C-alpha cells in the first residue's frame, strides 16, 4: 500500500482552483486542511458528488457544496435552468472533472467512475478507505465547500 503524498493532494487542490477560475475567473482558495476520522467525519453540505476509484487505486473523491455556492456557479456558467437536477448535475460534474484532471498525475490506471450525485440529508459516507481521509476546505467567493480525498494506491 502506498501513501498519498502532499504533491498528490495538491493535484486535486490545483484542479479545483483551476475549475473555479476557468468558470468564474475567481480562484477558489484553500481555507483549511485537516484529517477526518470516525469521530470527526468530513463536513458535507447540501449536495455531494462522488467519484469511486478502481484500477491501481481504491477509495473515493468527494466534493460537497452548499446550494448557494452551486447557484452562484450556475450563474457564472450562464445556465438558465436551476432545477434540483441541475444542482445535482453540477456537483457530479465538478467531482468528475477533478478526478479526470487528476489522471494527469495518477495515470490512466486510476479508473474513475461516472459521478454519483446526492442531495442532503445523507447517510454517513461509506466506509472510508483511509483511517484519516484528507479534508480540504475550499472557499470560493464567500462560500465554503469540502473536498474529501479518501484514496490509496493498491499497487
Amino acid at each position, binding site marked *: 500500500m502506498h501513501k498519498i503524498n502532499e504533491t498528490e493532494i495538491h493535484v486535486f487542490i490545483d484542479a479545483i482552483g*483551476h*475549475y473555479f477560475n*476557468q*468558470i468564474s*475567473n475567481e480562484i477558489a482558495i484553500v481555507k483549511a486542511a485537516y484529517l477526518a476520522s470516525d469521530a470527526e467525519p468530513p463536513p458535507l453540505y447540501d449536495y455531494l458528488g462522488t467519484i469511486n476509484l478502481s484500477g491501481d487505486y481504491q477509495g473515493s473523491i468527494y466534493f460537497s457544496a452548499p446550494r448557494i455556492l452551486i447557484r452562484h456557479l*450556475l450563474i457564472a*456558467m*450562464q*445556465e*438558465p*435552468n436551476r432545477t434540483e*437536477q*441541475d444542482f445535482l*448535475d*453540477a456537483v*457530479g*460534474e465538478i467531482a*468528475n*472533472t*477533478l*478526478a*479526470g*484532471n*487528476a*489522471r*494527469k498525475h495518477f*495515470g*490512466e490506471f486510476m479508473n*474513475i467512475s*461516472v459521478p454519483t450525485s446526492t442531495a442532503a440529508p445523507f447517510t454517513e459516507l461509506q466506509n472510508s478507505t483511509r483511517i484519516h481521509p484528507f479534508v480540504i476546505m475550499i472557499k470560493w467567493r464567500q462560500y465554503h465547500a469540502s473536498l474529501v480525498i479518501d484514496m490509496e494506491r493498491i499497487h
Partner: protein
Amino acid sequence: MKLMIVDDSSIIRNRIARISRHVDLAKLEIDIVGQASNGKEAVDLFVKAHPDIVTMDLTMPEMDGVECTKALAYMNPAVRILVISALSDKSTALKALKNGASGFLYKPFNDEQLISALESLVN
C-alpha cells in the same frame, strides 16, 4: 455548420450550446442539431441529424466517448469531432483521436478556449 453536443451533464451541454452561439462564431453559422447524454443516444441522433461537427465527452454511461467517436467516424469520416474531457491522461485522448476525433479540449474550459477550439476545428 451543424453541431451535435454529446455530454452526460446537461449543464455542460447547455454551456457548450450557449458558447457556440457566441458572436465570434457567427461566421461559422453553427446550428445545433442535437444534444445527447450518452454514446448510444449520440449514435441514434447522428443518423437522423447528420451533424458536421460534434463535441464529445469521454466519461459517459451506456457508451463511452471513445467508442462513440469510433462509431460516428465510421458512419461519416468527414465529421469533425472535438473531444471535451477532464481525463487528463494522454493515452485515452490519443485513443479517441486515433479513432477519428480531430481535436481535444480539457475540462474545465472557459468560453474563449471553446470558441477558439471550435474555430480551429472548422478551419
